[in-house]
C-alpha cells in the first residue's frame, strides 16, 4: 500500500511539473501570437505613410508611451528628419518637446541608429541620475535588411532600469518588420509611379500625332475626376476614370494622318474610319493586363444616353458609368476648345449645351453632377496650365 501511495505522489509531482511547463508554453504562445498579430498588422500597410502610422500604433501595444516622434534617416545628410509625432507638438515646443529635441541634438539618436539596437535613456534634461526621474526615453531604430531607415523616439513613464531584454527586442523586432514593410511600400510606390508615367506617355503619344488635341486628354481626365468625386464614387473608380480620361483617345494612334489631321469636315467614309478609334483603343488596352479594366471606358466613351452613339448603340444605364462620365467630360472639353470646324465656345455656353442635351446625348444625373462642380471646372481652366489652347478632334 505504501508503494502504491508513493507512486500516486510521484504522479502528482509529474502532473505539477507538466502544468508548470504548460503554463510556460501558454505564455510564450501568447507572446508569439501577439508578435505575429502585430507584425501582420504592419505588413498589411501598402503605403509608406501608412506603415509609419501603424508602427506607432502597434508599439503602443508593447510599451505604453506618453508621446512619440518618428524620424526618417536621410543617408546623404547623415541626419534624422522628423516625420511624425504623437501627443507632442513642436510648433511651440513645450518642456517635453524640448527634451525630445535635446536628444536629437546631442547625437544620442544617431548613435542608437548606428548601433541598430533599441536603447533607453533616462530623462537627462533634468541633469539627474538614472533613478531620479520617473520618465525615460526609448530609441528604437528602424532597419531594413540591416540598413538604417529611421528611428522611433518614445517618452515612457517608467525608469530606464525597468526594461527587460525581452521588452527591448520585442520593440526592435516590430520596428524591423516596419523597416521591411517600408522598403516594400517604397518599391510598390515606385512601380505605381512607373505605371502612371506609362499611362501619361501613352496619352502623350496621341497628342504628339495630333497637336491640336494637346491638353485635351489631360482636361477630359481632370473633368471626369471632378464628376466622379461629386458622385462619391470610391477612389478606385475615380482612378480608373482618371486614367480612362487620359487614354480615351489612344486608338487615334491607328487613324491615318490625312483623316486625323484633315483641315476640313470629314466625309462619311472618313468619319467611319475616325469612329473606329474607340474600338482600336480598347483593343490596345485589352493586351495590357494592368490597363484592361479601362477597356469598357475607352470602348464606350462615344455611346450616347439616347442610344444613338457608337460603336454598339448602347443606351441609358447599359453604358458603363465610367464611359458615360467620360462622354460628358469629353464633349464639354470639345465644345469649349477651338476646332477646325468651330471656334471655342465659352465655358458658360458649354455648360448650357450639356444641360440642353441632358437626357439626349447625356445622362441627366451626370449633367447635374457636372453643374455642381462647374466652379471647380472653371478654376481648372483658369488656373493650372489647363488654359484654352488650339484643338481639334473630339470626333
Amino acid at each position, binding site marked *: 500500500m505504501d508503494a502504491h501511495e508513493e507512486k500516486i505522489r510521484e504522479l502528482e509531482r509529474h502532473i505539477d511539473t507538466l502544468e508548470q511547463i504548460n503554463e510556460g508554453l501558454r505564455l510564450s504562445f501568447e507572446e508569439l501570437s501577439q508578435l505575429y498579430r502585430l507584425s501582420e498588422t504592419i505588413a498589411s500597410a501598402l503605403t509608406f505613410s501608412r506603415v509609419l502610422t501603424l508602427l506607432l500604433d502597434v508599439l503602443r501595444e508593447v510599451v505604453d508611451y506618453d508621446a512619440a516622434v518618428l524620424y526618417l534617416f536621410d543617408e546623404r545628410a547623415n541626419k534624422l528628419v522628423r516625420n511624425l509625432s504623437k501627443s507632442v507638438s513642436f510648433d511651440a515646443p513645450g518642456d517635453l518637446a524640448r527634451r525630445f529635441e535635446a536628444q536629437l541634438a*546631442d*547625437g*544620442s539618436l544617431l*548613435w542608437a541608429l548606428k*548601433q541598430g*539596437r533599441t*536603447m*533607453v*535613456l*533616462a530623462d*537627462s534634461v533634468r541633469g539627474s*541620475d*538614472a*533613478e531620479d526621474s520617473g520618465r*525615460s526615453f526609448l530609441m528604437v531604430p528602424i532597419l531594413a535588411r*540591416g540598413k538604417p531607415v529611421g528611428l522611433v523616439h518614445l517618452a515612457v513613464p517608467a*525608469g*530606464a*532600469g*525597468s*526594461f*527587460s*531584454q*525581452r521588452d527591448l*527586442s520585442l520593440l526592435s523586432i516590430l520596428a524591423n518588420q516596419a523597416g521591411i514593410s517600408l522598403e516594400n511600400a517604397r518599391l510598390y510606390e515606385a512601380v505605381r509611379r512607373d505605371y502612371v508615367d506609362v499611362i501619361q506617355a501613352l496619352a502623350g503619344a496621341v497628342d504628339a500625332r495630333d497637336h491640336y488635341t494637346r491638353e485635351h486628354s489631360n482636361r477630359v481626365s481632370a473633368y471626369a475626376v471632378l464628376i466622379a468625386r461629386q458622385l462619391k464614387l470610391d477612389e478606385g473608380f475615380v482612378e480608373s476614370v482618371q486614367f480612362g480620361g487620359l487614354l480615351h483617345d489612344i486608338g487615334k494612334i491607328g487613324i491615318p494622318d490625312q483623316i486625323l489631321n484633315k483641315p476640313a469636315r470629314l466625309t462619311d467614309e472618313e468619319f467611319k474610319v475616325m469612329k473606329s478609334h474607340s474600338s482600336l483603343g480598347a483593343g490596345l488596352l485589352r493586351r495590357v493586363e494592368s490597363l484592361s479594366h479601362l477597356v469598357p471606358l475607352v470602348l464606350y466613351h462615344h455611346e450616347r444616353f439616347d442610344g444613338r452613339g457608337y460603336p454598339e448603340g448602347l443606351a441609358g444605364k447599359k453604358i458603363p458609368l465610367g464611359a458615360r462620365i467620360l462622354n460628358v467630360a469629353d464633349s464639354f472639353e470639345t465644345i469649349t476648345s477651338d476646332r477646325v470646324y468651330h471656334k471655342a465656345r465659352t465655358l458658360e455656353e458649354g455648360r448650357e449645351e450639356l444641360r440642353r442635351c441632358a437626357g439626349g446625348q447625356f445622362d441627366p444625373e451626370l449633367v447635374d453632377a457636372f453643374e455642381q462642380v462647374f466652379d471647380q471646372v472653371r478654376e481648372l481652366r483658369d488656373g493650372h496650365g489647363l488654359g484654352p489652347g488650339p484643338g481639334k478632334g473630339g470626333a
Partner: protein
Amino acid sequence: MALPNGELQKALTRFKDLPTLPDVVARVMQIVSNPLTTAEDLNQVISLDQALTFKVLRLANSAYYGFPKEITHITQAVMILGFNTIRNLALSVSVHKMLFADRDKGLFNYRDFWKHCVAVGVCARILSRRIGYKNEENAFTAGLLHDIGKSLLERMDHAGFMGAIEASQQRQIPLWQAEQELLGVDHAAVGGRLAEIWNLPSDLRGAIELQHRPGEDGVPDPLVAAVHAANQLCRELGLGTDGDFGPTLIDPAVEKLLRLDAAARTEIAAEMDLRLKEAEEFLKFSRGA
C-alpha cells in the same frame, strides 16, 4: 587535430585547481541569460563590486563605444550599450585580472600578449560586421578571450609551455601542435574546457575551442571563422605577440565565408589602425587601471 575527450580529461587532471570565475561575474552571466531580467537587476549585481563597476564604466565611456555623452551609472550603461556588452565587459575585466595581469616571464610577455588579444578582438568584430553577423559585440569578446588557454597553460606549467613555444619557434610549427606533442593538450582545448566550467555562453566557448579547426564540420560558424581569421591577420600584421611561430594560414572555408581577397585585407588593415586607437582603453587595463 582535436584530442579525444578521454585524453583531454587525462591531460587536464594535471592542471588542478582551475581558476573559478568570481561570483559577481557568474551571476552577471546567469542574469543576462534570462530575457526577463531588467537593467536594474544587472546593476544590483555589478554594483556590489566597486572595482568592477569602475572598470566597466571606464570602458563603457571609452572611444571604442563612442557614445556622445558621459555614462555615469551601470543601469545607464546597460540601457545604452546593451545587456550583452555589459556582460562581456564584466567578463573581460575579470578574466584579464585572473589570467592576464602583468607577469613577464622569459619569452612570454603578458603586455604584448594582451595586445595581441585586444587586436584579435577588434579584428574579429570588424570581420563579423563585414558579413553582417548579428552579434558583433560577442565577436569582440571572443577575440579578446580566444587565448585564455595559453595563459592557463603558462600559469599551470610554465616550463612546459615555454618548451612548446620554443619548439614552435625552432621547428616553425603551430603552437597548438607543439603543445599537443609536449603537454598532451593544446590551448584551444584547455580554453574550451575553462569556458565550459565557467558557463560562458556557448558561442564564446565554441570560438575558443574551435579557433584552429573552424571548417571541420563543413561550413564554419561565423563567430569561429571571425576569430580564426582575426588571429591569423593580427599575426601577419605583427600586432602583439602570442607565442606562436607557425605559418599564418587561414582556413580556405573561412577565407571564402569572409570573402578575404587582397582588397578586403587592405581595407581591414586600414580599419584596424583606426579601431585599435579607439580600443586604447582595453590595452590600458593591463597597466592596472
